[in-house]
């Protein structure tokens, strides 16, 4: 087990380096630069050649690319990711601020979607082929095909504006800093409901058919038949034998879903004025805020690799055969 663990950990290193290298090169070679991005430009202020040169020097863009990369790496290995071009704040501080709402949303929605999906899928698996099964499956396909911003708009209209049940903008209320802990949690939850639903919808659409198929294939296994033959109740068979085995493959899917949800959705975050990572990346790209973009690349790469690693290790633990592959 330990050898396998070590091997897997070492394997992530080249990937990590590759992602950073590729991102660095692409963002610097891509047209546009921080100096042109923040030019107040065609407004009413003067922007002289000297000023422009000063901007380039300020952003340290005069050095060749490999020198810039070396400089950046030298700082990054000391965990110093530099300061944002836009406001001079340390990148780590900016990301730390913005990752919290994203983590809340990611783990909240995935947890809810998982529980719901497992319940619904178990219900469907025992009613395979019946109208309700077909109906929900078709519904899932439909849900998957609806663009999230349409769902978002509908939710805002119905629950935000019309029924006025949930706030639809921002993360906290104005009085947040003076609230008690419980009120704070309730406040955060209230603000997360609508945008959370936009994430839960597609997740359900993806997970329900998946878990259902997985359950069905396990239901066909001999040991399930044996359990039935032993005279166990359907419920005991389902929860004691079928579910644990059927949910194992779910680990893989989680490995794919976590990074996807984590990356956030620019569209939804803009729509709900949500201070998350997706918006930060989008804005940073628009400003060509290289240090922030690089910082976010590292964070997202670490998360993706970490999740894959954990999933693989869990697998190796659950199913020793894979260690020898």
């Amino acid at each position, binding site marked *: 087990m330990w050898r396998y663990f070590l091997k*897997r950990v070492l*394997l992530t290193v*080249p*990937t990590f380096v*590759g*992602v950073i290298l*590729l*991102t660095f090169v*692409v*963002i610097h*070679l*891509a*047209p*546009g630069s921080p100096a042109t991005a923040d030019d107040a430009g065609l407004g009413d202020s003067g922007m002289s050649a000297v000023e422009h040169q000063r901007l380039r020097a300020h952003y340290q863009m005069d050095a060749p690319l490999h020198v810039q990369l070396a400089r950046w790496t030298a700082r990054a290995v000391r965990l110093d990711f530099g300061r944002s071009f836009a406001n001079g704040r340390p990148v780590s501080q900016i990301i730390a601020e913005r990752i919290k709402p994203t983590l809340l949303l990611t783990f909240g929605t995935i947890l809810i979607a998982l529980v719901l999906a497992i319940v619904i899928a178990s219900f469907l698996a025992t009613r395979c082929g019946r109208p309700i099964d*077909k109906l929900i499956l*078709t519904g899932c396909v439909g849900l*998957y*095909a609806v*663009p999230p*911003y349409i769902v978002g708009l509908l939710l805002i209209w119905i629950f935000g504006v019309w029924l006025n049940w949930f706030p639809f903008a921002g993360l906290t209320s104005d009085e947040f800093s003076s609230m008690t802990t419980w009120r704070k949690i309730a406040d955060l939850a209230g603000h997360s409901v609508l945008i959370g639903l936009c994430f839960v919808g597609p997740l359900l659409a993806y997970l329900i*058919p*998946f878990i259902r*198929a*997985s359950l*069905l*294939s396990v239901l066909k296994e001999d040991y399930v038949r044996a359990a039935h033959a032993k005279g166990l109740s359907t419920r005991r068979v389902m929860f004691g034998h079928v579910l644990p085995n059927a949910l*194992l*493959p779910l*680990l*893989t*899917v989680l*490995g*794919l879903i976590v990074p996807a949800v984590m*990356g956030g959705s*620019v*569209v939804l975050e803009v729509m709900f004025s949500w201070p998350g990572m997706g918006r930060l*990346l*989008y804005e940073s*790209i628009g400003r060509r805020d290289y240090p922030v*973009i690089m910082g*976010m*690349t590292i964070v*997202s*790469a670490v998360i*993706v*690799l970490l999740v*894959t690693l954990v*999933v*693989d290790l869990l*697998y*190796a633990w659950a199913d020793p055969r*894979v260690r020898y*592959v």
Partner: protein
Amino acid sequence: MSVASRVGEDIILRRSTSIAGKRSVLTKFAWVVALCVVFVAVLAPLLAWHQPIVCKYQGTYDFPAVVDTVRQIPVLGSYLEKSKPFRFPTFDARKTLDPDSFAIWPPIPFGPIELMADANLSSSRAHWLGTDDRGRDVLARLIHGTRVSVRVGLYSMLLAGAIGIVVGAVAGFFGGMCDWVCSRFIEIVMCFPAFFLILAVMAWIGEGLTGVILVIGFTQWTSIARLVRAEVVRGREADFVMAARSYGASNTHILIRHLLPGALGPAVVAMTFGVADAILLEAGLSWVGVWRSVADAFVGLDAA
């Protein structure tokens, strides 16, 4: 490499068999819908166009909309040219053609980019779904938008499929160092913020459908590659491959004739889902403003 892909592929395989296995009413219905969409996409200019299908103009018969339909076929289309007055930008068929002369118009006699001067009309007999905020016929835009969506979905997934199958097959079949490099490459692309690539490619290639298709194709191939690789790895040790080896079949032969056919199944399923993702992605791109909304790509057709 990671166990994840092996299991993921397992699931997709199961899903694919369960989907393909039943020819239910639902499946049939899905086929009909898909065919209709393709039909609309291919024949768009015959359904909605600013020039007639057939007409008699100055003594000769012309088929402008038909010619335009053919001209949209890649390669082949470039050999065909529209007849004289109809290819002139200054020629307005609706005004110039004699109302009494013979002409068969498409059911929706408006092009997708024609400005009708009256914006936001509600539906009427002339404009079945009304006009949009720029005074263009909504139904015409819907029809031609379908074309764009189908093109984006199909072409980008063909590209993604080609890359994914090649990379996956090479990685899985040759193993060792080759597998190691390919697998790392796949992981790198998976971790890379695709959005930036999209911006970069858009600015390099310039505006147009090609850019969108290339970007989606080049970023969305990773899951296909992983599926194909897993399938090839599994098949490599199978008895029938051993048998093929024993009678001296070459590597290429084994890969193409014995391993790939099995691996294509899951790849195709992944690509089908990819088509939907690609279309949504394209819509997302235009929402973000990186490129102009769906049917605006059509400007390219007769302006370029």
